[in-house]
């Protein structure tokens, strides 16, 4: 059979034409499935729901089910929206509307999606070989969720071609490579690793929400993992677990946050035989570059390249890094969304860089987005919650650096005058706790301020906006 050019293969076809399909596996904390079974069987419970040409919300509870469903849906569905396990169900309605979803895929427990009024396909973390789903050839659209200022996620449109563009495609599999990532594969950083495994026909060991570091590392050891990726925060967690030497990776990759020299040196000391690299990527801009010299920052030679055929062109404008490549997303879905790129095709990453000698270093963000261990937080969404408190006049939420998760959310709060007066006599700690409890009730934990400070004024600019620091 003639094989299609690899850049137009679907996920299922990558596995089908692998030539070593019987060897590779995808393993989660809740099971393990071989490539051959994945290609020949199905994870869907029955055939009553058709996915052909459908726009599918993929809201499965665990990553193994997501992986199995993705292989089947790519090429078959018109569009697939990947929802991480912690997607707030209250956002499903806007996601469904903006992405014009007409079918939902979920796991056994589907109470969150039952009320959405759409056909529901149920998927498992196991494969039924008696009930095969054909492999499709459609160019499926992939949609990833990215944080937005209002708390509702932005829908970032990719396709398989843009997603696998950064991946070196080889004609034969490298048997010694077994991939793992601490990321969730439903986010860009984790998805990149999942796709590297599929395109390279390598086994992949998935992470599992809430699993203890030691148990996770033991699973990675059991499967002989050699290539491991995670954020600097993930890696600090590994180094502080006391079980870092359970694994012996030959390739250690960091992305999703700024990798400082401290974490690069600590990983080099723990895994002296491993190649250690840090990549720059974002859901919108795709993978920009990969730094392999063990130093923080990146070489200035990567900027302002003049090769029009280069995969990635980068420039620095107004201090922020701009990227144009085939790897970038095409647009945001939904009405009244801003353009994702400039007219000449560059995505403004919003990451500020500073040239020192022959190297650029990341110094923060132009916008005030806070990166907590690889998860983006927009201050405005937290301020909206704080400002609803009856004692609060306004608030300023900002990032505060720390060596564990890169940054944390903290809040400066200006109280209403009456509350200020009565607060002089009352316990500030109780009021702070009350405000934080309201945040905890509606925000994920990483968005809840780690510290609250009551201030006597908040600076406002000439345009009437809060003055935000660029940390």
């Amino acid at each position, binding site marked *: 059979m003639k094989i299609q050019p690899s850049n137009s293969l679907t996920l299922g076809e990558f596995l089908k034409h692998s030539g070593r399909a019987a060897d590779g596996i995808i393993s989660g904390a809740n099971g393990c499935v071989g490539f051959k079974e994945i290609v020949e069987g199905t994870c869907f419970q029955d055939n009553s729901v058709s996915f052909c040409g459908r726009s599918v919300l993929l809201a499965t509870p665990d990553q193994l089910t997501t992986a199995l469903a993705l292989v089947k849906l790519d090429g078959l569905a018109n569009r697939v929206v990947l929802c991480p396990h912690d997607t707030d169900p209250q956002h499903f309605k806007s996601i469904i509307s903006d992405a014009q979803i007409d079918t939902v895929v979920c796991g056994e427990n589907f109470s969150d999606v039952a009320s959405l009024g759409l056909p529901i396909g149920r998927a498992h973390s196991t494969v039924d070989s008696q009930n095969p789903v054909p492999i499709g050839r459609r160019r499926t659209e992939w949609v990833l969720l990215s944080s937005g200022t209002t708390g509702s996620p932005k829908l970032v449109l990719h396709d398989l071609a843009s997603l696998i563009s950064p991946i070196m495609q080889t004609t034969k599999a490298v048997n010694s490579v077994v991939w793992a990532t601490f990321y969730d594969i439903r986010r860009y950083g984790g998805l990149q690793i999942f796709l590297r495994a599929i395109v390279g026909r390598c086994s992949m060991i998935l992470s599992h929400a809430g699993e203890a570091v030691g148990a996770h590392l033991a699973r990675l050891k059991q499967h002989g993992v050699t290539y491991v990726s995670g954020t600097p925060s993930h890696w600090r967690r590994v180094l*502080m677990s006391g079980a870092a030497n359970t694994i012996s990776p030959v390739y250690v990759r960091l992305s999703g946050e700024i990798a400082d020299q401290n974490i690069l040196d*600590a990983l080099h*000391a723990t895994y002296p035989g491993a190649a250690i690299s840090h990549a720059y990527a974002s859901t919108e801009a795709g993978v920009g570059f990969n730094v392999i010299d063990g130093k923080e920052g990146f070489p200035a030679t990567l900027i302002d390249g003049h090769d029009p055929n280069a995969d990635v062109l980068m420039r620095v404008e107004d201090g922020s890094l701009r990227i144009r490549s085939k790897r970038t997303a095409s647009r945001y879905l939904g009405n009244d969304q801003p353009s994702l790129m400039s007219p000449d095709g560059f995505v403004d990453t919003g990451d500020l860089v500073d040239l020192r000698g022959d190297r650029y270093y990341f110094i923060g963000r132009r916008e005030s987005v806070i990166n*907590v261990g690889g998860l983006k937080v927009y201050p405005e969404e937290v301020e909206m919650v704080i400002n609803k408190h009856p004692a609060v006049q306004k608030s300023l939420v900002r990032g*505060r650096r720390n060596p*564990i998760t890169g940054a944390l959310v903290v809040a400066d709060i200006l109280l209403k005058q009456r509350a200020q007066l009565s607060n002089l006599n009352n316990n500030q700690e109780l009021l702070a706790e009350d405000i934080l409890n309201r945040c905890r009730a509606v925000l994920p*934990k*990483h968005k809840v301020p*780690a*510290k609250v400070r009551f201030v006597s004024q908040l600076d406002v600019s000439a345009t009437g906006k809060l003055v935000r620091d660029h940390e």
Partner: protein
Amino acid sequence: MTIRSTILVNIQKIAAAYERDIASLNDDVALFDSGLDSLCFAVLVVRLEDELGLHPLSSVARFPVTIGDFIKLYENSAKQ
């Protein structure tokens, strides 16, 4: 309060705020077996920076593994 008790009291406060069950806080308990996750440790480090004026983790050559390592790191930093 000593550095040790400041650290232990803060661990307990943070565990309560973030609804984490914590183990008995012996020196030989691994930090990530204590019940706190990365986010909780980040909060702990920020609070200790404010309360003790110390931030030794920013330049540490080896990351602490146990609660004893962690306390010692702060105690040594205070002596410098």
